[in-house]
């Protein structure tokens, strides 16, 4: 499928041709709006609405594909780029046509240097076949697309940080407004869409908005790629219909196939490190953008990490906080200082040197980061702490009271070094 001829033999680039020949840009936006497609990167923002924010006036505009996939436990975009890059390219081109952009950048995380080969080859094939370039398919539409590799920073998944990085600046988010739709890349109107989101666009055009809405739920239509990892028998990427339960995902024969070694389920991270951890009761929730709201969590980019009964939740929280501390860009005070402080406290608690007071301070620090950071990353960073404390307070309690044998911790714990 990553080869152009195979992709075209399976109906590839027909959606693009259809768009170019049959629709006005505004109509494309209307179709995507009608389909109910929501951003697959995690925020779930309606894609069509996002496109409609771009000013109609002529001028330089950009589509930027967000392939910075860096969330813990997320590995869907890499597979798309490796196995089906043309669908992403086609979706991005349709988006470009819809908003009047002539330039598309695919911002890939630095670690995709190898995987990006397939994408680069696909791009070249498109240029060679005249699918990218001037007067595409004999129309007035001209469009170019480029691949760009970041330097490996989680924060660059945040759209303004991504744009800063793409411009060659330090990968730090900026305070919105200005929103990218008005002042984005090089201060020009820009749409930043997740890779998977754009891959959804060609089938919507080909089969229509109604077809798309017939899949999934009313509020969360369409299919979703779920990245399943952790203590399950069959980890991997699964394309599921929105609305399927987490239970089916973990235990279903076609999916996770149950907990590894027949152990008991303990907890689940529905959206990598950035969403609050949930317990067994949440398994009955549907995989939709709204499904986990009653359980105080969110599906995010659907990077589901399953943890069995042997997992030390303090250890898990420490791992995640270490990640956020390591990835904090340092621009705003609460995230820069708070993640560092949380990690130190957690480390001490985990090592068995913590006190009741440390636990209190940890909770307090996490709470005081909330609502004060410049971008969403800082808000995410407190989730592992607050949600594990909420659900597994006993484990923390046992640690600070000392003497308790460590539960799992076979993996090396990162030691704060800086």
């Amino acid at each position, binding site marked *: 499928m990553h080869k152009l001829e195979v992709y075209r033999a399976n109906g590839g680039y027909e959606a693009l041709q259809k768009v170019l020949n049959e629709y006005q840009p505004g109509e494309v936006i209307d179709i995507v709006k009608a389909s109910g497609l929501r951003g697959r990167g995690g925020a779930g923002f309606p894609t069509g609405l996002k496109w409609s924010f771009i000013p109609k006036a002529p001028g330089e505009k950009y589509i930027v594909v967000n392939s910075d996939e860096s969330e813990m436990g997320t590995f869907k975009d890499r597979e798309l780029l490796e196995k089906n890059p043309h669908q992403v390219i086609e979706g991005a081109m349709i988006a470009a046509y819809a908003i009047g952009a002539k330039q598309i950048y695919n911002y890939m995380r630095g670690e995709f240097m190898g995987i990006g080969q397939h994408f680069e080859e696909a791009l070249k094939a498109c240029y060679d076949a005249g699918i990218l370039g001037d007067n595409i398919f004999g129309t007035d539409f001209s469009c170019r697309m480029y691949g760009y590799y970041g330097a490996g*920073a989680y*924060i660059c998944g945040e759209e303004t940080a991504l744009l800063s990085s793409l411009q060659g600046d*330090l*990968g*730090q988010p*900026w*305070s919105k407004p200005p929103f990218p739709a008005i002042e984005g890349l090089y201060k020009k109107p820009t749409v930043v869409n997740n890779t998977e989101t754009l891959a959804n666009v060609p089938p919507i055009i080909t089969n229509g908005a109604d077809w798309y809405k017939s899949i999934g739920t009313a509020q969360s239509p369409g299919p979703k790629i779920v990245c399943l990892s952790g203590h399950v028998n069959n980890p991997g990427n699964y394309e599921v219909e929105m609305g399927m339960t987490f239970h089916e995902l973990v235990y279903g024969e076609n999916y996770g196939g149950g907990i590894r070694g027949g152990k008991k389920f303990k907890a689940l991270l529905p959206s990598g490190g950035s969403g609050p951890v949930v317990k067994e009761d949440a398994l009955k929730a549907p995989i939709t953008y709204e499904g986990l709201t009653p359980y105080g969590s969110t599906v995010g980019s659907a990077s589901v990490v399953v943890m069995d009964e042997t997992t030390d939740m303090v250890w898990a929280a420490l791992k995640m906080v270490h990640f956020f*501390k*390591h*990835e*904090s*860009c*340092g*621009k*705003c*005070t*609460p995230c*820069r*200082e*708070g*993640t*560092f*402080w949380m990690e*130190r406290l957690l480390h001490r608690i985990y090592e068995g040197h913590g006190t009741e007071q440390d636990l209190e*301070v940890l909770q*307090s620090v996490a709470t*005081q980061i909330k*609502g*004060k*950071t*410049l971008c969403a990353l800082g808000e995410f960073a407190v989730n592992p702490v607050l949600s594990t404390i909420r659900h597994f307070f006993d484990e923390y309690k046992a640690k600070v009271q000392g003497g308790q044998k460590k539960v799992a911790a076979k993996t090396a714990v990162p030691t704060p070094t*800086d």
Partner: protein
Amino acid sequence: MSDQVNLTIDGVELSVPNGTLVVDAAKMIENPIPVFCYHPKMAPVGMCRMCLVEIGLPVRDRNSGEPVLNDDGTPQVSFRGLQTACTVQVSEGMVVRTTTEVVTKAREDVIEFLLTSHPLDCPICDKGGECPLQNLTMEHGKGTSRMDYSLKMKLDKHVPLGELIYLDRERCIQCGRCVRFQEEIVDDPVIRFHNRGRSLEIVTMSDPGFDSYWSGNTTDICPVGALTTADFRFGARPWELTPVATLSPHCPSGANMTFSTRREAKSGGRSVIKRIMPRQNEPVNEIWISDRDRFVHHFADAPDRLKKPLMRKNGQLVEVEWGEALDAVAGKLQQSGTAVAGLSGDRVSNEDMFLFQKLFRQGLKSHNIDLANRRLAGGDVVAKVGISQGSNLLNLGQGDAIVVIASDLHEEVPVWWLRVKQAAQRGAELVILNLRPTRLDECSRNVIHYQPGQAIATLRQLVNDAKVAAADADNSPIKAAADVIMQANNVVAFYGAEGLTYAETDAVARLLANLLLIKNEEAYAGRPNNGLIPVWPHNNTQGAWDMGIHPALEPGYKPAAKPGMRANEVYAAAQTGALKALFLLAADPIGDGLMAGRGQLDFLVVQELFLTETAAQADVVLPAQSWAEREGTFTSGERRVQRYYPAIQPVGEARPDWQILAQIGERVGLEKPAFAASLVFRDLAKAVPQYKGMDYRALARVEKQWPDVGGDDLYYGGNAYENRVGLGMQWPAAAESGAVDHFEVADVDSELPGKVVVVRTAALFTPGTLINHTELLQARMAQPTLIIQAADAAKLQLAQGEKVMVEVAGRGVETAVRLSEDTPEGVALLRGVPYQAGLTELKVMG
């Protein structure tokens, strides 16, 4: 949309201009919202999160758009979480709350976070005592710490970003003000953030480190003690310092500054200048000064300052008492009849210059009075069409035009460069004329590089093109530039002397005046934000013109009945014996290569700070006080008369120049001397009509300035910003009150002396009597360099890096050859050497 927006901050209703940021609106009603990263001179970034407040907007009915009212008839307001007051603009009906529990807690939290990685080494920190972090911690912090001190970061505390600025990595709170200042304000992005998270740090990207003429300003705006100057570092505690207002002793912009002084035991109880910081004067230098101004003061208390009068006895200069020296000077001058001359430098005060010319004109009946080193003509033109009263370069932007000819403002007057560049960034069109590229070219769409010798012809063409309608002329770049000027709402024109003779600069000034006098509907000259600005070589060249330091112009530009000798005639007469006595005030013509030696002079008196080459040959040397020891006034190139104040005790027995001159005057029969500088000023204000209405009290007047920086709250850091003692007064150009005739422009023939002509170009750090005493700047001094294109160099058999002797102002100077294709063909640029006028032939010696 209305220009004003109504909002409520903590129950106080106010109306502010549309587009105002919430943080500024609150500052306007003196309800300051604490900030670290925000600075009113720079775009907001919302990084530090200190300014979080609750901001509510009126709820509007979705269908009707009408405000939804509460039961009691007040509009319903919806609040959504905490927002940064520095990034949100005011809007109609907005309600801001800064005193709620949530906001108070947020401030406490952010302070706590900042302090977790801050070393709290306030007792040894240079900023301690004037530190925004310290102050805001006292005001908004918890007062206790929950952070285990052992978890503190340990980072480098003495990181030189260059030899001028040091970084303490532990103290840095990553607010980015310094980085943004260098990038946004002065366009020298030589320091950047590096790394991320808690490892985010400031690094320099240039070699030499922190290579910018503005680096010192980052230490003022740093809200903590992270950036300090090598000069002041560990030098004093802020509360020991006495602020004393002063002015730049070099710069014709009249940059306002403040000395911080302290009495020190090791100096025998004398006050010592510990540092210089900018003083806010928005129409002059805002709150910025160049590094030359910041670090130049070391000459004032240099050990080689003259401390007692010297007289030549038996061939040797020996120390004498003042009375003996003054008697000798007065006697010798009187004995010489009218074969006397007085030449002044252009760095002394108006009071000094006024009394100097009075001594000669009234005391000795001689008009032989001039500046020792005249470079730039046109003071008389400026008096008529100079930039108008009430002008401010900050007002120029979209729709305005600025002309700069024969000047490299970045090297000559950096403050003006900055303000012109910023005007261009706001949309003003720049028209740049020079024979070589300068830094301002990058901000201009109308750059004209004329051939050597073609400055006058090019400008004449521009003025002629400006007089004809757009369609009637060719489409040359000159015509395009002329159209840009004539279409502008306001026009300011700067002119300098680069590559020009004195006579040529006179023609330039007159041509520019004629340009400003062209009538569309109304001439530009005479209107606010319009007019001519001469790029004078020194801080008080303008004052010299005003005070009548000119053989043909008496104080107030009154033509002298019988003009005296010009400086070059004086130098010649000294050699032939036609001149008997010469009085040099703050001038070193022998050292500057203007005078071969004392020649046939009977008597040479030099009034100086140092024993210069000329002073060493004098019969009497009178020790003068430097500008740091006394008071006086300077007049800037924008004709702003400003006061400066005494900061340190006199060095030795040195006296103020005006006092020495008054005491000599008394001895030659003038009235008893005024005993205060203010009284001398009162006299000169009577003699100079342009200074009518000025006195020391009026010059010391201040008014509230915006942005509201400085002040005791140290809101934006920099405790020396506040201007408490005077904004100065601009005197009106003639065009402001009546019609001014077009100027006759003489034909000036530019001679091209050779195949390759030498043009001396300015460098901010060019060695000189004063700046040589600042050891710190020695590594930044412009080294004598000959910059030439490869093709010309090949013809002359010069190679890159080669050391060659070239003739500068009649002397041989060893220069290093640098090849640069930016240099026009047939031109060799000489940098880092003493001044020489016009175009000369490149003579490689030996």
